[in-house]
């Protein structure tokens, strides 16, 4: 991830640090990562995409455990990574932390946590963003 340098990273900070997505002002659909226009409303949505902070709660759709990783992640193997469906609808890819690897399951309730993602061996830059951990309190909603 060294290509593009620092600007490439800080450009995405609001989204990666705080889970800020976009909501279409025309149909109400919510997108994360943010989109410039709504694929369903297209021209009607231009200029009407509003920032929206996501709750950070969701559920595991599918997952894997990475054993062979790119060099920026080599120190972390083996690590679980999942597609998480957020309460508001969007799905994102993120690491699952703070639990045993064998406890990671499809359907598991998880929530956002702010963590160090990777370390660039060449520049020494450390990149932060979201990971997900098992939900602390029991959830009553689906």
């Amino acid at each position: 991830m060294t290509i593009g340098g620092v600007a490439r990273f800080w450009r995405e900070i609001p989204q990666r640090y705080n889970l800020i997505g976009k909501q279409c002002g025309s149909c109400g659909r919510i997108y994360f990562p943010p989109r410039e226009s709504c694929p369903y409303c297209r021209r009607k949505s231009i200029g009407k995409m509003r920032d929206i902070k996501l709750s950070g709660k969701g559920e595991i759709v599918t997952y894997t455990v990475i054993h062979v990783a790119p060099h920026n992640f080599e120190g972390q193997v083996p690590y679980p990574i999942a597609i998480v469906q957020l309460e508001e609808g969007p799905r994102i890819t993120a690491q699952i932390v703070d639990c045993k690897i064998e406890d990671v399951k499809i359907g598991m309730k998880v929530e956002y946590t702010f963590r160090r993602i990777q370390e660039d061996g060449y520049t020494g830059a450390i990149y932060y963003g979201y990971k997900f951990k098992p939900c602390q309190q029991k959830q009553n909603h689906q």
Partner: protein
Amino acid sequence: MRDVAIIGIGITKFGELWDKSFRQLIAEAGSKAIIDAGIEGKEIDAIYVGSMSAGRFIGQEHVGALVADSSGFAHLHIPAIRVESACASGGLALRQGYLSVASGMNDIVVVGGIEKMSDVGGTAATETLATAADQEWEAFFGATFPGIYAMIATKHMHDYGTTREQLAQVAVKNHANGALNPNAQFRREISLDTVIKAPPVAQPLGLLDCSPVSDGAASLILCPAEKAKKYTDKPVKIIGSGQASDTLALHARDSICTFNSTVYAARMAYKQAKKTPKDIDVAEVHDCFTIAEIIAIEDLGFVEKGEGGKAIDNNITTLDGSLPVNTSGGLKAKGHPVGATGVAQVVEIVTQLRGEAEKRQVKDATIGLAHNVGGCGASCIVHILEAM
């Protein structure tokens, strides 16, 4: 639009070819195809070449002109076009060449596909392949390319009861086919146990569920179908060509276990060819990972969704089955020089339809299908071919 035929094929050996350069490989595949078709350089109207990432693999861009130059055509000033669609670059090169002949703009077109991957280390090759995924929203967070396919496998096993053994069977079958293909990277059979006990890459996928890092090139010669018999006794007609796209990231799709790019590209190709999945005698599908073959045969309509894992036990996709899949060994055993793959698949189908596949020949094969995927399904190209 006019009908288009393939009148010549050429392929190099696939593998980690330390002694062969990018230039040597493409020149070898191209000249084999040109000699096979019996055409001359001055007849060529255009060259289309698929290459995923020459810039990262060998530090060389401007691949279109380079391919024309290394093939000895610089003095003929033939238009040369490089196309890129990740691992589907080869299939896309064929589709672009096909469209240019079908349109009437060109008569004789050379299609090539190439990748020289082994000049960089394994880690660098893996990272370059990951550029076919979403760099900002998948790779940044630690998802690898095998990891993304592994998440499809986890979901397929959960939703449809597909087993670890069924994944491994794909590798066993394709290695057995590869053992019969003189150009394959791996020419040895492997056991189910060996696949399952191989070191893990991304659970549930192990090392032997993944296609290898490969060097290689392949080439095809196209011409208008009405002129094809002038060049060869065994022309093969392109009766359907389909292409579709989808989101770069797997997570952005509603369905994890279906590649809609495959569904749409196949629908386009079947419609043009006026054929259904039942009409296909032999197919090469994009098995970059074992799970990829399972979902490909479902999305192409060869079996019902969820039934892909049983296709080998049910004797459907095996060499003596009702619809043999990846007779060449597939990406898994034949090798996967990414830009070459889509072209190499069609070389295998043409070889089968000509009846020249020797020990791996599918009896009475007249209609074949080639399925080439880019990334984890953000691009797909499907071609249907028929012996003339």
